[in-house]
């Protein structure tokens, strides 16, 4: 059944909380490292001392590490579903990327394969961010605590690894942020209210839309009625 005759459930509350905690942690980690990363942001040190930034970086690092662990308790179903989706890769996911550039510009090219709960771009971004998380956490903990126990040869690689992972993660974040905030504002509702308009679900995740109908969670009649009313 649709929520309020037009919305379909997308994300559970625990998953949403952890998403925003992760976003806060990541953004703050990036900002607190920015003056170290680029000389153009050295002026940050006029606001707070370098040492304070280093403490803040470590504080948000703890949040960054804890949040995914917390999500296993607050949203185990969503996390399991997300993991399964990421590894469920097929030909349609590869075809997605051929049509994605035009789709992202609002051109809606014919031939775009139907996407599931997470589209191929979301799966790739998820995989990228998860890999980046592991690299950032491993290298970050080594830089923070590893001096006494890790060999010098290992420690030499931790800064380049941390830097590379941060660069990749930030580029991915910009793409994710742009698509959610500007290209597909309907999708943002999913990460706030926990549901999305059925029109958006059909337009962008049609395979999932069909799955919901097949499972009897929504009826095709109410879905089509909601879409028609929205387009009127």
């Amino acid at each position, binding site marked *: 059944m649709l929520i309020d005759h037009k919305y379909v459930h997308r994300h559970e509350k625990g998953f949403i909380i952890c998403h925003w905690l992760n976003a806060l942690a990541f953004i703050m980690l990036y900002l607190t490292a920015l003056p170290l990363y680029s000389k153009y942001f050295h002026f940050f040190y006029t606001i707070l001392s370098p040492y304070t930034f280093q403490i803040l970086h470590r504080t948000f690092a703890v949040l960054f590490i804890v949040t995914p662990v917390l999500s296993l308790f607050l949203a185990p179903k969503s996390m399991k579903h997300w993991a399964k989706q990421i590894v469920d890769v097929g030909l349609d996911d590869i075809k997605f990327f051929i049509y994605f550039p035009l789709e992202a510009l609002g051109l809606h090219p014919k031939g775009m394969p139907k996407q599931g709960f997470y589209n191929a771009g979301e799966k790739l971004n998820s995989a990228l961010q998860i890999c980046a998380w592991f690299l950032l956490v491993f290298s970050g903990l080594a830089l923070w605590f590893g001096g006494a126990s890790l060999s010098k040869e290992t420690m030499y690689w931790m800064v380049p690894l941390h830097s590379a992972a941060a660069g990749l993660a930030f580029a991915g974040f910009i793409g994710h942020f742009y698509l959610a905030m*500007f290209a597909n504002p309907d999708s943002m509702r999913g990460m706030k209210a926990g549901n999305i308009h059925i029109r958006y679900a059909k337009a962008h995740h049609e395979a999932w839309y069909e799955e919901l109908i097949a499972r009897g969670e929504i009826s095709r009649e109410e879905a089509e009625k909601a879409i028609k009313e929205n387009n009127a």
Partner: protein
Amino acid sequence: MATEMAMLHDVSRCTGCRACMVACKQWKELPAESTPFDGNLQSHKGLSPKTYNLIKMTERTENDTFHWDFIKFQCMHCAHPACAKGCPKGALHKTESGAVVLNKEKCIGCGYCADNCPFDVPKVDEQTHKSTKCDLCADRIENGMTPACAQTCTARAIDFGKKDDMITLAHSRLNDIKGSFPNAQLYGVDKNGVGGTHMMYILTDSPAVYGLPANPKTNDAIDLWKDIIRPVGQLMGVGAIVGAAGAYALTKAIAKKHKDEKGGKSDAD
């Protein structure tokens, strides 16, 4: 002063008097540190933010012969300093004299220099949050003076002068002591993985005996980070933002064009 200088320490002459340590503390206005006695006459376990120069004293027995090895240990002033390459703020630089000097104003205490140094020299002061190390008394050198430690040495175990002269002296001294110390060798004189050092040694035995790395090297990881990963990462960040802004502008333009073509009606998604 444009001449490349170097310091030469002959360990065979060192008596472990530690006058050089006192002179360093005096010139740098560093306080004494109270350190526990742990069965060794060595005064400090290692270099610290208040101790830039240390006489290491190692006791060992080899072939029933007791050895008490002294060595003056401080920044090696590498020709290709890993600390300077690894510094994200450009706070470390190599002077024309060869000294590697830290600019405390630029230093943010991140500790990358400490992580990257193959000799474990720089120490970050937890009170001031700045890195610390010997700077070869760069201020004294600039005024035509000798570094405090070399000036003070009571046993003439520390020489200081033009680099070429020190290299010549090193070879000459090595010949003199080879009879008594068959394993004697020079350290830091030849180009090595750090390009050679401006702190050179005449050792009476292998570097390992003195706790020195046999093949010190500025690790490739540091060059990879500074020359490739960091700039590419910065470019990627800027590229992603510019790309997103461009995509947004293009999307808006396309939507407007479609709207105009459909006579003011917008596309339904």
